[in-house]
């Protein structure tokens, strides 16, 4: 098999090729390793997708369902002995003594660690411009951002530098970069994948998920990493994810919320989504309007709750035990200088926001109120799912924007997650699939389902994907 043929294979197809003996796991891994290493060595002259790339092909392992398919993993997943910095300077040189549960499960299923991917520092960002390793570039247009925070994972998969990648989504950090890079990205039901070993941003929202070339790959990855983990008290017993096979949507009701598919959404994005809904109707689906009255408040609630949790989660980076430590004469100065030098501006901004929101006298007005909004949003979804099976909206209000375009205006950056944050607050599964191009740039369509509907959500996405026939090849490097 030629290198070109190998790169055309989805992860599922690559695993099958290794299983049938058409391809050796070693050749598969080395093909990707060489490409990933070249991107790493090129730095900002390449796409800057990776923070670390494997030095060598892993030793041959006993046969397992994933047959040695290489996987790229977002930097914030702890892997024993492998640099894991969550895109931050404050973890400079940190190599964890243990491996994240999700990564262990994928390895046990036969996946091999190819590389760690660049990301926004501590997953805080929507453009991958907040990384200690520099920005990631969008393979569709190198002057544009890949989205974030799992920007390195999305760009690597889109560019064919990795067959698939693992990311995390707190308010849209898998779905939005997947949309901007023209690939599939899924945030499973909160609790489906163990968070143990994921460097935390906002614990009640963080969820690991796949970034893949197609829906079948997303299902395959989720199948091999989901399930209850005794190390994560919030993880769930979930039903096994089955390989998606649907080609029709007969009898399914798709709800389009005007709150997420109207004002503020770029015309080209809306148009793409509308034509996809027509395709859905052609597959037998009923498309109806639904209301999510509190969804417009989701972003405000999110920017209280997520920073509040982050301000506490990031307190451990104090220079005492690991990572960066600034020299100083006393304890307070050491703390202050370490955190001053180690955290980037967006992380500092969110720590301050969160600290303020939790302060005595302000807690009820901010944190308490935001929690109540969160409950209302979850109730909105529950009500909507009484009348529709899935909720459909654009994933991102815009296509990929230019590097530097939003860095000076945090609020405009925060709006990138306008369509994805409501599902995060409700803890429900949502998937973004590429549905077309607008001005030559990919547009993502988001499908969301009720909690624990992950398997059938993937099935519906698969049917749509088959009808859309998105061509990703323009992004290959």
């Amino acid at each position: 098999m030629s290198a070109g043929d190998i790169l055309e294979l989805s992860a599922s197809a690559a695993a099958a090729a290794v299983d049938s003996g058409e391809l050796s796991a070693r050749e598969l891994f080395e093909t990707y390793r060489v490409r990933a290493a070249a991107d790493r060595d090129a730095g900002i002259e390449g796409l800057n997708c990776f923070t670390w790339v494997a030095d060598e092909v892993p030793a041959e392992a006993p046969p397992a369902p994933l047959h040695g398919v290489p996987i790229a993993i977002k930097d914030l997943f702890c892997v024993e002995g492998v640099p894991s910095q969550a895109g931050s300077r404050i973890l400079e040189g940190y190599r964890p003594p243990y491996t994240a549960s999700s990564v262990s499960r994928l390895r046990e299923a036969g996946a091999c660690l190819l590389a760690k991917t660049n990301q926004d520092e501590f997953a805080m960002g929507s453009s991958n411009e907040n990384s200690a390793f520099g920005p990631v570039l969008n393979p569709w247009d190198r002057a544009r951002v890949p989205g974030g925070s799992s920007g390195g994972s999305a760009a690597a998969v889109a560019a064919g530098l990795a067959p698939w990648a693992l990311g995390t989504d707190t308010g849209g950090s898998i779905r939005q970069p997947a949309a901007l890079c023209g690939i599939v990205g899924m945030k499973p039901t909160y609790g489906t994948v163990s968070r143990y070993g994921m460097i935390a941003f906002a614990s009640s929202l963080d969820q690991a998920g796949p970034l893949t070339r197609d829906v079948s790959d997303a299902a395959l990855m989720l199948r091999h990493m989901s399930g209850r983990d005794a190390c994560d008290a919030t993880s769930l017993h979930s039903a096994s994810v089955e390989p998606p096979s649907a080609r029709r949507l007969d009898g399914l009701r798709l709800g389009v919320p005007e709150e997420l598919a109207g004002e503020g959404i770029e015309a080209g994005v809306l148009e793409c989504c509308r034509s996809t809904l027509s395709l859905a109707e052609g597959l037998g689906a009923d498309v109806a309007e639904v209301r999510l009255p509190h969804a417009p408040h989701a972003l405000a609630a999110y920017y209280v709750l997520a920073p509040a949790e982050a301000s506490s989660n990031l307190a451990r980076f104090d220079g005492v035990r690991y990572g960066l430590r600034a020299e100083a004469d006393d304890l307070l100065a050491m703390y202050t200088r370490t955190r001053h030098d180690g955290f980037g501006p967006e992380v500092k901004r969110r720590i301050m926001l969160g600290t303020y929101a939790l302060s005595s006298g302000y807690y009820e007005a901010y944190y308490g109120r935001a929690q109540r909004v969160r409950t209302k949003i979850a109730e909105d979804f529950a009500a909507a799912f009484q009348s529709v099976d899935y909720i459909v909206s654009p994933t991102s209000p815009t296509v990929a924007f230019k590097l530097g375009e939003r860095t000076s205006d945090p609020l405009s950056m925060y709006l990138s997650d306008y369509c994805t944050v409501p599902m995060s607050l409700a803890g429900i599964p949502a998937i973004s699939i590429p549905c077309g191009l607008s001005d030559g740039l990919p547009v993502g369509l988001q499908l969301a389902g009720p909690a624990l509907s992950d398997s059938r959500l993937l099935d519906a996405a698969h049917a749509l994907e088959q009808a859309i026939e998105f061509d990703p090849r323009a992004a290959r490097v």
Partner: protein
Amino acid sequence: MSENADAGAKGASDGAVPAAWEPVIGLEIHVQLATATKMFCGCELSFGERPNTHTCAVCLGLPGSLPVANARAVHFGLMIGLALGSELAPRSIFHRKNYFYPDLPKGYQISQYEEPLCRGGRLGDVRIHRVHLEEDAAKLIHVGASGRIHGSDASVVDFNRGGTPLAEIVTEPDLRSPEQCSEWLKLLRTTLRQLGVSDVNMEEGSLRCDANVSVRPAGARELGTKAELKNMNSFRYLERGIRAEIARQVEVLQRGGEVVQETLHYDPASDRLTSLRSKEEAHDYRYFPEPDLIPVAIDERMLARARAELPELPAARAERFQRQLGLSRESAQLLAFRAELGDYLEAALAAGAEPEPPPQALANWVSGELAGRLDEGADPASSRVTAAALAALVGLVSAKRVSVGAARQVLDKLVTEGGEDPAAIIEREGLAALDGGEELAAVVAAALDANADAAERVRAGNEKAIGPIIGTVMRETKGRADGGEVRRLVREQLGI
């Protein structure tokens, strides 16, 4: 004018509180739970092991690690709640208490805050405010002269203790004197020891007590401004610290000053209190619900299991000792509140000694004669004196087969040599009581001869003069004679 303790006020040691003032004290007790593993991870608890050998990603707060609540600690918490008669929350939640300190690797302590496991309750005459679960901090060791963080050359952290499960028991401000505090804390200690939930050792830190102390004019209803006292790591220091703080506050108030709300550190070496922080410097802990943990939901099965494991508790046992054994209230409490003495008494009563010892006499011998011969606080069950031997001995005393004095000598032998059979010792040492027979009458007659002057005076009505005569008899019989019997014989032979 307000005053704090920064000057290092030295407490007045005489401890007398002027009658015009009433101290009001509430206690906050931290109890290390004797679970196998830590509160939120699988590390075994550590007692004096090499530093940083009982640690993992979770208790070191490594990035990405997550806590999982220890079910055994919850079980112990429920047992404590049941023992104190608390209301048990069907659903309690953990919060994060945020502050920076090197002994706190996550930058927050996981603790219960708004919804504790147990609310209310009572132990003895003190009401319980709440009981909640949390994790212990690591241990900071300050290298250098002072042993405290200020003025030390370096500080090192031992994370072995970090994450040890703690139950924090908070009382209502129902205590009124240092002595009452230490008495009550002893009752709590015995209760917790009986429950088997903790080693409850103050010196080793498995039982730690802080005190909130305020003083108000006698008869006032409103509470005065309180100070929180820390670092009183023995019953003696607890009393001394509280006494010193009461004296300081009374002195401030008597001068027309105002007590400042602050946290004080008690230094037992100097008996001084120094201010750690004032109210203005108090932390804003930014509590919020711990998103990494699910609520602790208590079901009937958990409650049933906790109830099933509840032993008889000291207060109930004291009541039973009074009711069932007819012990005096004081004696019953003494034996019940020191569980090892109570256990020993019950073992002695169950030994089936013949003649049978009366319970009160046996109780007195256990708590007085035997305990007095052992190290303070020692468990008599680990002495050489078996409960059966003591029961037999007290039975012989009660049947007047051996005098009290001789029995004390037998007990001395038992303490040093052990042995099952006090009767054999009595036999061997010739300590059997001289009954009222001819042998004793002859000794008495000889004693009267030897103390002719005293005998005259007794005959003349001076009762006190009988002492030397009885003393001679006792000496001659090596204490084997019964004092009452000797007195009777003396009077008989003197014809009075």
